[in-house]
């Protein structure tokens, strides 16, 4: 029996009915929805023990109403893969990014970052910085664009000691689902880290001139108004955002280069603005 058939069986065991539908996602991950149940086969690269700790954390009462709770608090082993089981939710519609629930996302991140670590089981480090480093490593070429992106990443300024708080580790609009309310999903990079990394992807889009400043202001404003602790208080939010936003810019540019290469095409205008951003970073 293939992996997808096994996952469909797991979904049925948790009450999922109807035709299983495979969701497009990263190539090393399989996500299958069957009725009201979603089953995820995690990447073979992911450490199962870390996943187990992360899953326990999102199953705990401390993050209830902030992160989607699993249907099964333990990691299952299916066909040699680590598998988790979730209730299905409605993702953000992709047709109008300006109408996406940016404020709700920001408020959820603010609440997540404010969860005292003492209320949670032990957690590994948040995965953002390691994810950025992996994206850089995946670039195989050594042309001027690749060199520029590597330089932007390598020359990140030293940071002062940072807060170590509960951090999602990989936030973007695909990490929100609606059930009776909006909730954060995806435990893969959840952990203890610098929470400014969770704001750094929109910050990088904004600094690249891609994200409408009004949308960025809505997102940042909602985060600060909810008492989000990632950016210090009353100071320039970019003091804490600067380094993670540089790292995310390099990460996004590296992903763009790898995608374009895989599809045998040039970078498009959007992707190119990330490379331009790297160029400004190395000159700043």
């Amino acid at each position, binding site marked *: 029996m293939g992996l997808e058939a096994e996952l469909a069986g797991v979904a049925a065991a948790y009450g999922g009915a109807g035709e299983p539908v495979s969701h497009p996602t990263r190539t090393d991950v399989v996500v299958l929805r069957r009725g009201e149940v979603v089953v995820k086969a995690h990447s073979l690269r992911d450490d199962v023990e870390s996943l187990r700790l992360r899953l326990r954390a999102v199953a705990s009462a401390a993050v209830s109403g902030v992160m989607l709770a699993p249907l099964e608090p333990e990691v299952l082993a299916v066909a040699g893969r680590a598998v988790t089981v979730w209730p299905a939710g409605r993702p*953000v519609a992709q047709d109008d990014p300006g109408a996406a629930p940016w404020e709700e996302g920001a408020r959820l991140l603010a609440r997540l970052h404010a969860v005292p670590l003492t209320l949670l089981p032990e957690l590994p480090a948040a995965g953002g910085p390691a994810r950025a480093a992996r994206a850089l490593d995946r670039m195989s070429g050594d042309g001027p664009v690749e060199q520029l992106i590597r330089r932007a990443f390598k020359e990140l300024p030293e940071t002062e000691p940072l807060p170590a708080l509960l951090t999602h580790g990989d936030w973007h609009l*695909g990490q929100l689902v609606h059930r009776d309310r909006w909730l954060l999903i995806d435990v893969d990079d959840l952990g203890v880290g610098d929470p400014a990394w969770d704001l750094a992807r929109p910050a990088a889009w904004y600094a*690249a001139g891609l994200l409408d400043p009004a949308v960025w202001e809505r997102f940042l404003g909602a985060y600060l108004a909810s008492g989000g602790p990632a950016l210090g208080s009353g100071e320039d939010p*970019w003091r804490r955002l600067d380094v993670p*936003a540089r790292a995310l810019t390099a990460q996004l540019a590296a992903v763009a280069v790898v995608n374009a290469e895989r599809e045998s095409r040039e970078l498009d205008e959007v992707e190119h*603005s990330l490379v331009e951003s790297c160029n400004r970073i190395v000159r700043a």
Partner: protein
Amino acid sequence: MQCPKCRGNMRTYERNGVHIEQCDNCRGIFLDYGELETLTRMESQYHAAPPPPAPGPAWGAPHGGHYGGHHHRQRSWVGMLFST
């Protein structure tokens, strides 16, 4: 208060902290002491104040980036918003 010009009834309005009496009859306007200066100052602020630059990092895109442009229809932009 009566209008000093036509003796009509004057009505008091408050606009942005400035007291204005306006005559219901001839529509003439009476300003209290110092309020003409207040209005002048507000007017010059309105004309002189440049829009505050959107705050950002030193390496941020120059004001007037690509946002709002046709990239919003580009697949790579939407893909990036929604994926790792």
